């Protein structure tokens, strides 16, 4: 569903992402984690077609994003941490606009269903300025899901949500995955990633540190230290990389790094 090969993004001399390879299959939820400046958002933006990669390729549902951007973007939804909305369009107008852009015929029943699900039905005529932070996030989600994307990327999806919103968002992500959507989530909240992701990709300084299923990764790290949480895996993996021992092999071939654990 998502196929990334040798993805590299440079900003002048600065390497934001380097030679990144991974795949996400239908129904998989991949957590993209890493310290600040690791290249998570840059990777997601390259996947969403917002910024062009310097080198490498991205395929969405078999469509090369560089060669067939329209077909690829038609299958894609990208949710930023800060909801991106038009200040002067109402909730209803946002959906009408999105339907025309993505050519979603008979969108009204689906839009009504989404608004109902996201508890926005009573706010159809409100502009974003009249909505709370969480409601704006929900509106962005309704717009993104209107064209039934088969690939969804989330950048810090829980930012600004209340506990009920967090629970609903997690349920929604898992529901989409069960329906066969390929999902990538970038987050600093490791417990969220651990809870809902089937696969993990840890980045540091634009390079892949570990990639594999959650169980593969934790299993490797638990060989010496018993039950290992993703948080511990994260600190050990990124701490190891600091010493110059970056591992770019699949998790199944990876050996856990030795040495003291970093404090959380």
């Amino acid at each position: 569903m998502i196929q990334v090969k040798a993805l590299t993004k440079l900003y002048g001399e600065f390497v934001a992402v380097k030679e990144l390879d991974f795949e996400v299959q239908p129904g998989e939820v991949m957590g993209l984690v890493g310290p600040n400046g690791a290249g998570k958002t840059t990777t997601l933006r390259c996947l969403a077609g917002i910024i062009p990669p310097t080198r490498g390729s991205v395929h969405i549902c078999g469509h090369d994003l560089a060669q067939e951007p329209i077909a690829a973007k038609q299958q894609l939804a990208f949710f930023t941490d800060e909801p991106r909305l038009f200040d002067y369009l109402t909730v209803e107008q946002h959906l009408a606009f999105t339907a025309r852009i993505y050519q979603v015929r008979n969108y009204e029943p689906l839009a009504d269903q989404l608004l109902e699900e996201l508890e926005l039905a009573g706010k159809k005529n409100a502009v974003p300025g009249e909505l709370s932070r969480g409601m704006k996030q929900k509106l962005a989600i309704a717009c993104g899901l209107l064209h039934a994307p088969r690939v969804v990327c989330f950048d810090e999806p829980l930012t600004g949500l209340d506990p009920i919103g967090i629970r609903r968002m997690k349920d929604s992500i898992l529901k989409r995955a069960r329906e066969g959507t390929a999902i990538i989530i970038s987050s600093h909240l490791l417990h969220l990633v651990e809870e809902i992701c089937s696969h993990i990709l840890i980045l540091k300084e634009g390079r892949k540190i570990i990639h594999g299923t959650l169980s593969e990764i934790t299993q490797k790290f638990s060989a010496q230290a018993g039950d290992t949480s993703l948080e511990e895996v994260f600190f050990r993996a990124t701490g190891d990389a600091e010493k110059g021992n970056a591992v770019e092999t699949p998790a199944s071939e990876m050996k856990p790094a030795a040495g003291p654990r970093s404090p959380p």
Partner: protein
Amino acid sequence: MNSALLYLQYHSVKNRTVMRIKRLKQPKYLVGAIVGGLYFYWYFFRTLFGTPTRGQPFALLASPESQALLESIGALILLIILLLAWIIPHQRAALTFTEAEVAFLFPAPISRRTLIHFKLLRSQTAILFTTLLLTLVTNRLGGHVWLRAAGFWLILSTVNLHLLGSSFALTMLLDRGISPWQRRLGILALAVVLTGGVIVWGRQTMPAFDLSRFTDLQAVQDYAQQVLTAGPVPYLLYPLRLVVRPFLASNALAFLSALGPAAALLLLHYVWVVRSNVAFEEASVQASQKLAEKLAAVRSGNWQAARKQPRSKRPPFRLRPSGPPAVALLWKNLIGAGQAFTLRIWISLAVFALCASLGVTQASGGSGLRPALGMIAAMLLAWSLLIGPQLLRQDFRQDLPLADLLKTYPLRGWQLALGEILAPVAILTCIQWLLLIVILGLFWQTNPAALGRPERLGLGFGAALIAPMLNLILLQIPNAAALAFPAWFQSAKGGGQGIEATGQRLIFMLGQVLVLLVVLLPAAALFAGVFFLARWLLATFVAIPLASIAAALVLAVEAALGVMLLGWLFDRFDVAAEQTS
């Protein structure tokens, strides 16, 4: 006043100036500053130092009558400003402080009166700058520079104090349970009574209003002179005339004799303001938060958010889910432009313009009013081509902060580009069509020997056909500039202040004129060719539309190429690179 507040004000101004100078290290500011500096030198400073106008009497003051007229006009303008200050506001008085000032000054042991003094001191920076600017702008009118500057300062300071005082007074009325609408009704009732009294009294002294008497501008001026200098109006405007009088003084002696009453009024206003014991702190905190939000939005490039909070607006038409996606962007941007941009409103306006212009034509008879209005409409039409694309910004310039969202849409670059610029093109075209209707209506009864009615209709049709194509091209220029030089574009709009910002705007304007000339050349050549050929074979009124169609086709091809280029520029627009730079 508290010395700490003086320190704060002094260093704020000093540091801001130093920062402005330091940023000239960046080429975009340096080039802007050079161009802006040259512009200011050629238009203002050159004439300020060593020009023949220096020391000459104020050009507008040809006679004591004209002085009285100008005094009354100035007083009338002030009256309108002050009246609006008493009618429009609906909130409590709020002295605008920055969030930092609120955080530091409000909890500090500083009296309310000291805070007002601080606010007054700070407003003096803006008043002095405005005084300088107005003095430079009006320098070409002659007169004594320093006298005029002092006159401007007196007017601006009095108005500033009155606005502050009136906001305090309105707050006190609110505190006493008088709602904004009750107050507005009261003031309007007073205004109506006064106006009625003036009309009744004035009927004995003022000439009757007769449109057919206005054969030229002199007739209009004479009528205005009679109305404003005879009868009750001069008495009604007397206090405000005192404020304006020093500005219009023809020499130092006249200035000094006018200074006393004006300064006394200023002092009275000052006493009124500082003695007003109104709680402005709560409203000021809210105002400062809004100011901070606006500043944050401006700094992040989100100009839309920096404006007044938008409300839900009626869409201009129903957007169907299928069809060209570019129309969705047109629809969205028309909503952003406001409620007024619906087809029904434009048709109503067109009918009104036609009726009004024909009505004026009938009523004015052979007076000079009709051609004067026609010329003004024609000038506005020409200016709309240059100024319109700068003023109407419901396009990439508005959506650039959301460029990352636009890039996720499954659309080609050219589709996005076309959709983005369609809204300002549509609005500008409608305005120009309205002006064309007005021009045709006003010149409908002009001597047919010069240009027959069919030819005039042909010209109107041709211009109406060419206008949208031309707008499509002209709107591409600022959009292309925004995409190619986003940093320049944002500073050009948002910097908004200083010589460098003026210079940047001038560079853009010059580029626009240059492109306009280049794109017009092939269209004009084809127009001329087709026109002469068609005129040889057919009548002139047929030749003009035929030539216009040919020119419009050339412009359409140029516009299509431009849209492709704009789309290419958007495809290449690297959101992340712009953010990191």
